[in-house]
């Protein structure tokens, strides 16, 4: 005998596997839903319902209490796009993204790269660099308000010492958006730094050692190993930063209240004012929907463009 034979089993009746399988599948689905239930309920109450309600409201005019009065169809949307205030806030928002995004990413990347060196006491610097994550927007805004203060502010006093005239950081229309952007960059650095540092630390150190044996210099390694290997993290940080920038509210409310002359009236702040200062819940809802669509499109575009440039392991 060369191999042991396998005895074939002869079934005369076909077995009903299908029914049992379907039953099992139903059971698994039920169990899964049970585990998901807490988040489904929470999301429904705080996300899905408000969203549907917002879409509904955007087709109506409302009274001061927010109750619907007249159905106007798409009129709210048409009004928005002819409103100079909204168009201005749209422009300001895009400018704000343009100011904050590169600054945040480049500064955080720089800090993350230097904090990734193996040095004595580097943990202290890592803590410092990420500490702005632990400061609330309100507290940070108060702190920046003092820095930007026209007469007693640290920045203006520093300029005065250099013989440069005072700048109305938060009151001059030319400077206000930039000032808010600078404080926002400071606030965002902590989080971005931490994520990028995490990304850097997950890069295999053998790659650098291998490159060192080949004789690669610091910047060569940075360009050919660090940046490509970090691209998924960079991409993630960028997407999150764009979304965050579009949703900026706290620092505007604290620092400028949308002024001077609507220069820093970013979309979310604009929506807030439309709804809770002007009591125009209908058009505020329409603006919110438009913001949602813009963020959706931006994110989709980023994914489409990013996918080609990003290296995933």
């Amino acid at each position, binding site marked *: 005998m060369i191999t042991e034979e396998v005895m074939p089993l002869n079934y005369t009746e076909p077995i009903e596997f299908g029914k049992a399988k379907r039953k099992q599948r139903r059971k698994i689905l039920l169990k899964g839903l049970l585990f998901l239930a807490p988040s489904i309920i929470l999301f429904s109450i705080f996300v899905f319902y408000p969203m549907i309600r917002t879409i509904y409201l955007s087709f109506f005019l409302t009274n001061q209490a927010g109750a619907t009065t007249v159905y106007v169809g798409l009129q709210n949307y048409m009004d928005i796009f002819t409103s100079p205030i909204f168009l201005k806030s749209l422009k300001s928002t895009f400018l704000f993204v343009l100011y904050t995004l590169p600054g945040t990413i480049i500064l955080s990347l720089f800090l993350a790269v230097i904090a990734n060196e193996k040095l004595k006491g580097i943990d202290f610097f890592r803590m410092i660099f990420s500490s702005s994550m632990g400061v609330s927007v309100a507290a940070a805004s108060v702190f920046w308000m003092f820095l930007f203060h026209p007469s007693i502010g640290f920045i203006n006093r520093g300029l005065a010492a250099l013989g440069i005239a005072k700048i109305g950081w938060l009151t001059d229309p030319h400077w206000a958006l930039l000032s808010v952007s600078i404080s926002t960059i400071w606030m965002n650095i902590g989080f971005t730094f931490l994520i990028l540092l995490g990304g850097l630390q997950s890069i*295999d150190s*053998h*790659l650098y*050692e*291998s*490159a*060192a*044996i*080949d*004789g*690669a210099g610091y910047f*060569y390694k940075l360009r*050919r*190993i660090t940046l*490509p*290997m970090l*691209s998924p993290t960079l991409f993630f940080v960028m997407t999150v930063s764009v979304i965050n920038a579009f949703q900026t509210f706290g620092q505007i409310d604290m620092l400028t209240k949308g002024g001077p002359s609507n220069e820093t009236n970013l979309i979310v702040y604009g929506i807030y004012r439309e709804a809770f200062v002007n009591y125009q819940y209908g058009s505020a809802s329409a603006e919110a929907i438009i913001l949602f669509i813009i963020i959706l499109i931006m994110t989709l575009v980023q994914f489409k463009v990013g996918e080609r440039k990003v*290296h995933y*392991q």
Partner: protein
Amino acid sequence: MKQVEMIDISKSYDKQTNVLNDINLSINKGEFFVLVGPSGCGKSTLLRMVAGLEEITSGLLTINGEPANHLPPKERKLSMVFQNYALYPHLTVEQNILFGLDVKKVNKEERKRRLKETAEMIGLTDLLKRKPKELSGGQRQRVALARSVVSRAPLCLMDEPLSNLDAKLRAQMRIEIRRLQRQLGLTMIYVTHDQVEAMTMGDRIMVLNEGKVQQVGKPITLYNEPANTFVASFIGSPKMNLGQAELLAEGKQLIVEDKLQFQLSAQDRIHLPPHQKTTIGIRAEHLYPAANHEATHHLEVAGVEHLGNETLIVFEGIGDQLWSAKWSGQWMVSPGDVVPVSISVENFCFFDAENGRLIKPAYKGQSQEVVAQ
């Protein structure tokens, strides 16, 4: 000529305990030198010190006769293959192989020529456009190898390059690496924890344990004349059988583990060391099967492994030691059987009972002459 020399090299991470102690070693040009030892013995650290990836705490390292302690890795004219291959996952095989030449700004024609040559030599020509994740373990290993070869560095360091491969591929790559090393005349320092790799590949082997050199020598020397009980049990598969031995009856009788008695012949007594207590060692292939009347001892079988061409038998009841025997052919014994065996004192290696150092190797020669045709 000496390619690499180490004089009293030590390494310490905390300035108190040394992970490597006074390593003295010289490696010749064109030699395949293997560093072997159990994990955590410091062999990789030593290799990384040669590469310049790890600081040398004290001692002198010379490469090509020049002091090299202070040189950065790139000035040491060497290449290195890492255990996990360290391939750049975002680059293609071709870019991976050429990375080092890119860094050194080798001109385009030369680059192309060397790439073609290397890819052909190592059998990667069809895979050049692929990314590392699209390769199998063996192919990745080849890319790492190619990266090392293409640099044309005269000294090549390998840090457990085969440990991520399956057994069959490992055997094949062993031969290939050895062939490549001979063909290119490379000086190789090869780190492994696998004593089979060490035995089959090395021109010379250094056995390390707990940061100390145990023995340096040719594979066969290490096998026949292990410098101490550690080398004896580390080199060779199965490991050498060890037992405590005592001389009795005015030196006419040797008793091992209070169990196995050997009457010593006049010839035995000439060769035996005079020590009262020793540790003896005997290789598994020297526990011979015997017919009942010529058996010197009867041992109880604890386990049997059938390999087809040979049978590995583990005996118990010799003190608390398990001894193994390797018998050629197929022997149908089963655990619990008491089997007659023939053991001869002439195959014993004697070690100091206290510190385990070799006193005397087996006096019966091991090598068999083969007449080359």
